[in-house]
């Protein structure tokens, strides 16, 4: 028998007893809808919890620091046992499966000033390993390009141009407004520019800029100041980030920061040491060079948990909202289990319903089964027909149940977002960046839909096993004689 022919026969049989097919399917429909809706709800809630975590920063990126304290053992790790964020650490982290890149960072210890034309602003100079970070930071570049490795190139954070002021102009305007104020009285005074800086951000990309930094040192207890200027070119600007920590960052190759840090530190307490011992000191520094921070990029969100675990085992502390992922996953796994379990009971009842319907229909069709056997249907043919029939009842229930669940999810999402329920459930972290799609209370991902359909079909098949065997065992002779 050809498969398509068997489907045709099965469909005809189901259609012949439409009402019974429909009623039996309703059981499966309700069960499937309940399971899908429950899982969709818990998935949606989890998604929201994860999203509110993401408001703190990208979950696949985390900052790694040495562990100082082991809570399980209530023990502070002494200095010499503590991990150092050196080149060795970078190599060690790279070996952890799931880590795509390790991006070391070294900050300039002093604040620096970035000057472009007449505008200037205080920035934080951050040294990055260009080779390691290029692949991931490239996607964050909004304008221009990322660093290529040349020491004269810098990439600025989104807010840098917005923080820059034309100092000279402001001074002039301040003077003028003072004059005006004296002339017209305080009421006519224009409101001061509270935002500080130009109202519209100017484009700094592809402009020449100067990084200015100064250091203070003492000679014979007398403070002295020295200024250093570095000519650079702004090659790119990153897109807006939710992470306030890096809002005024200017990224440069790590070697530049190393050099500038050396310059800043020179003469601080060890100005006497300059000269003969300086060479060896520099060498020593090279050996014990430590980064301020290692940023680890994880391949995907699914691997975050295992990476966090591996990092902790190796003695690192992870500072990332991803730390909470594990708790969230555990919590929602339990929720899914409980909700899914409750819904599964209704599906079990539906399964028994299918078995019942199938046995009834075998009783009704005993004679038909006998005829089919006599005119050439094999035992397998009969089993297949009844298995498929019961599988189809499950499938119909699954498809309609999925539709029902989808409708329910739409309704829940509609009222959930309209009633501001989402805001309450957002754990008080507030909404994400503007332009982000409205958060959903429940989601049905593709896998869940496919799972629901497949599962209901399998349920139908399982329910059909016993009736199918029973049908195939009917004696053709007795079956034909029955009326």
């Amino acid at each position, binding site marked *: 028998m050809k498969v398509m*022919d068997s489907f045709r026969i099965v469909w005809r049989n189901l259609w012949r007893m439409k009402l019974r097919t429909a009623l039996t399917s309703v059981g499966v429909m309700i069960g499937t809808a309940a399971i899908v809706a429950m899982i969709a709800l818990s998935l949606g809630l989890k998604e929201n919890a994860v999203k509110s975590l993401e408001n703190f920063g990208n979950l696949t990126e985390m900052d790694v620091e040495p562990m100082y304290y082991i809570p399980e053992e209530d023990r502070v790790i002494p200095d010499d046992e503590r991990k150092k964020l050196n080149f060795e650490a970078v190599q060690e982290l790279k070996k952890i499966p799931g880590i795509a890149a390790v991006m070391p960072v070294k900050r300039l210890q002093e604040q620096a000033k970035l000057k472009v034309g007449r505008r200037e602003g205080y920035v934080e100079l951050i040294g990055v390993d260009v080779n390691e970070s290029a692949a991931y930071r490239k996607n964050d570049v909004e304008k221009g390009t990322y660093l290529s490795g040349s020491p004269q190139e810098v990439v600025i954070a989104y807010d840098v141009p917005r923080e820059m002021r034309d100092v000279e102009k402001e001074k002039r305007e301040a003077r003028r407004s003072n004059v005006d104020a004296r002339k017209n009285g305080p009421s006519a005074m224009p409101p001061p520019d509270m935002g500080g800086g130009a109202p519209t951000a100017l484009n700094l990309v592809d402009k020449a800029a100067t990084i200015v930094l100064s250091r203070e040192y003492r000679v014979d207890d007398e403070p002295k100041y020295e200024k250093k200027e570095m000519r650079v070119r702004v090659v790119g600007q990153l897109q807006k980030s939710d992470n306030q920590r890096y809002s005024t960052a200017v990224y440069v190759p790590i070697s530049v920061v190393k050099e500038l840090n050396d310059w800043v530190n020179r003469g601080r307490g060890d100005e006497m040491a300059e000269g003969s011992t300086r060479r060896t000191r520099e060498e020593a520094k090279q050996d014990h060079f430590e980064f301020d921070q290692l940023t680890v990029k994880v391949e995907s969100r699914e691997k975050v948990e295992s990476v966090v675990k591996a990092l902790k085992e190796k003695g690192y502390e992870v500072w990332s909202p991803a730390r909470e992922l594990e708790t969230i996953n555990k919590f929602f796994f339990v929720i899914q289990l409980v909700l899914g379990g409750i819904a599964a009971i209704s599906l079990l009842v539906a399964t028994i319903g299918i078995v019942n319907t199938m046995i009834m229909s075998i009783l009704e069709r005993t004679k038909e089964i006998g005829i089919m056997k*006599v005119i*050439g249907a*094999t035992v*397998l*043919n009969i089993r297949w027909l009844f298995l498929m029939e019961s599988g189809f009842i499950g499938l119909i229930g699954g498809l309609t149940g999925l539709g029902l669940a989808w409708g329910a999810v739409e309704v829940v999402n509609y009222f959930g977002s309209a009633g501001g329920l989402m805001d309450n459930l957002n754990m008080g972290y507030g909404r994400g960046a503007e332009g982000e799609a409205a958060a959903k209370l429940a989601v049905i991902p593709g896998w869940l839909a496919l799972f629901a359909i497949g599962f209901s079909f399998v349920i139908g098949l399982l329910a059909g096993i016993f009736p199918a065997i029973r049908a195939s065992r009917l004696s053709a002779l007795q079956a*034909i004689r029955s009326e």
Partner: protein
Amino acid sequence: MKNAAGELTVTGVNHSYGTGKIKVPVLFDINLHISKGEFVALCGSSGSGKSTLLNLLAGLTKPDEGSVMVSGEEISRYSENELCLFRRKSMGFIFQSYNLLPNLTALENVELPLIFAGESVRKRRARAQEILEHVGLTGRLDHKPNELSGGQQQRVSIARALVNQPSIILADEPTGNLDSKTEQEILTLMRQMNKENKTTFIIVTHEQEVAEQSDRVIYLQDGRVVQKRTRPA
């Protein structure tokens, strides 16, 4: 002894109904040989065991003792599934109550054996149509059994039995539900098919007309063959 297609040999068959201690013997020491292309009537009064013998020949029942050879195969040893396959390719059945599937049209009923045999839609439709026209049902192809008369239903059932081109047709009181005019028509049709295709026909009946038109009549009484009469040529 080896049989050719369409031949049947029954050797030393004893059969009884019931299980355990209470057994009702039905057939005693049956020995029969039916040649290819024969048109045989199986006669006898009610309870003589003729239907049981037919069921043994069809493989629907297994004999307690003895062997049933059909077309060279000892079907009394076959498993259920082997029997199904065997019936599919070499046997056709005609019943007193026609046993058509009520929700299928005449054409679909005739197609059914070919569907189980895995024939393609185009081929089986053409074949079913051809044979239905051959049994005189042109224009009735899309009628359901309840829209057909008894004689027409029996024609559909004959067409269904023949569609696989089996070597043997087993018929259980094929004219039992029909009036005498229709009975004659059906009988003529069966004889025609028997002659055209050299198909062996074994017909259980207690109608005198059927017996008279057969090549041979086998009489059963209380489970024994009492008389084999060959029609005078």
